[in-house]
């Protein structure tokens, strides 16, 4: 069954048509890799898919239901990772993640948060304000979400590999593969070549003038 499907999607941004009449579906265990130049509308599309922005025309369905009608259920099953990390600079990594878990009604003990941060190579930085961490480390803190929301059905990732080192890329790639083989669906963009050992569907957005 299609986790996410899209019919006749069009988005206009600042009087420029980014794409029109887009139709696709992502099945359980499916990975959709959105490609395109800068400005082609990848981020805009992902924001529409996540339900942050309403498309100019067309509909997005989550398990056959329009996402406008099942917003709560949809968001319970979604993990979105955008350009903005969603990490407060003044709070520490642990505080940020605890807040995120409470917000998304995920019951995760503090020990698990600590051990996940260890896995993400952030030992000793757990209690430091996030502003003191490097760009890559801040991304790792935000990425910890993908270790927490176990029952999610869909991940949407916008350029997740930016600023990560090779070890970080491997770690995240592994987590994505694990999620996919567990029946999850993933939509992602990336300018790096994907190093996932998994069959990939590609969607190419053309830059329009």
């Amino acid at each position, binding site marked *: 069954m299609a986790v996410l499907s899209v019919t006749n999607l069009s988005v206009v941004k600042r009087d420029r048509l980014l794409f029109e009449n887009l139709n696709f579906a992502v099945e359980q265990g499916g990975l959709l890799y959105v490609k395109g130049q800068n400005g082609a509308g990848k981020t805009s599309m992902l924001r529409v898919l996540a339900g942050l922005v309403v498309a100019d025309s067309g509909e997005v369905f989550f398990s056959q239901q329009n996402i406008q009608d099942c917003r709560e259920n949809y968001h319970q099953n979604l993990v979105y990772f955008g*350009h903005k990390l969603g990490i407060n600079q003044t709070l520490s990594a642990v505080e940020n993640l605890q807040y995120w878990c409470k917000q998304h009604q995920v019951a995760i003990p503090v020990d698990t948060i600590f051990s996940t941060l260890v896995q993400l190579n952030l030992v000793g930085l757990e209690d430091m304000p996030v502003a003191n961490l490097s760009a890559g480390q801040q991304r790792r803190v935000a990425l910890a979400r993908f270790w927490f929301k176990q029952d999610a059905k869909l991940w949407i990732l916008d350029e997740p590999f930016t600023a990560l080192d090779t070890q970080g890329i491997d770690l995240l790639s592994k987590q994505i593969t694990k999620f996919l083989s567990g029946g999850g669906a993933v939509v992602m963009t990336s300018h790096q070549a994907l190093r996932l050992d998994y069959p990939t569907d590609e969607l190419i957005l053309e830059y329009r003038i």
Partner: protein
Amino acid sequence: MAALMAILKRDLALAYRQRAELMQPMLFFILVISLFPLAVGPEPKTLQIIGPGVIWVAAILSSLLGLERLFRDDFQDGSLEQLMLSSTSLPAAALVKVVAHWLTSILPLIILSPLLALFLHLSEPMYWALLKTLLLGTPLLSLIGAIAVGLTVGLNRGGVLLALLLLPVFIPLLIFATSAVESAAMQLQYTAQLAIIGAMFLFSLALAPFAIAYALRVSQT
């Protein structure tokens, strides 16, 4: 419910850690009010006439200074996006954020107000009337202000625009609040003015959360 408590706790913790930023509107409030006795002269009668108005105008201006903090950081770092993508209801979350904001940046002004009333030679009945109008009226400032912050948070440097949008809206509140204190100065009843401010407050309490949530969603585009 747990999610809303988490927002409240987080916002209070953040306010405590950014207390230097939080102090600025408060110092502004004190300084503006202490300028008046210096500029107008220490004549008690004159100060009593302008006093309530001065305190209210200063309260409105300093609340505008701190208002932008309400959603700015969360918008810029993406916390707001994540909040919208959680199953927490956005109007409820917005209301909790406004409450946290009122507790951290407006309540201190009210606590400071006896000192300032002394600067301006307000009599005791005048001070009590002023306190009541502040307690009923300032939550209204936060609620209505939050709608405008929600609308302007997507534009960078919405600071002055925010003031231009909000100041005209606060005029009715200012009129009723100062008229209540004037009545108190003349030993008259001022329940009517308080009732009107209270009605405005309850009305905005009921509707503003939805307007704030809508404004925040619009700002995401």
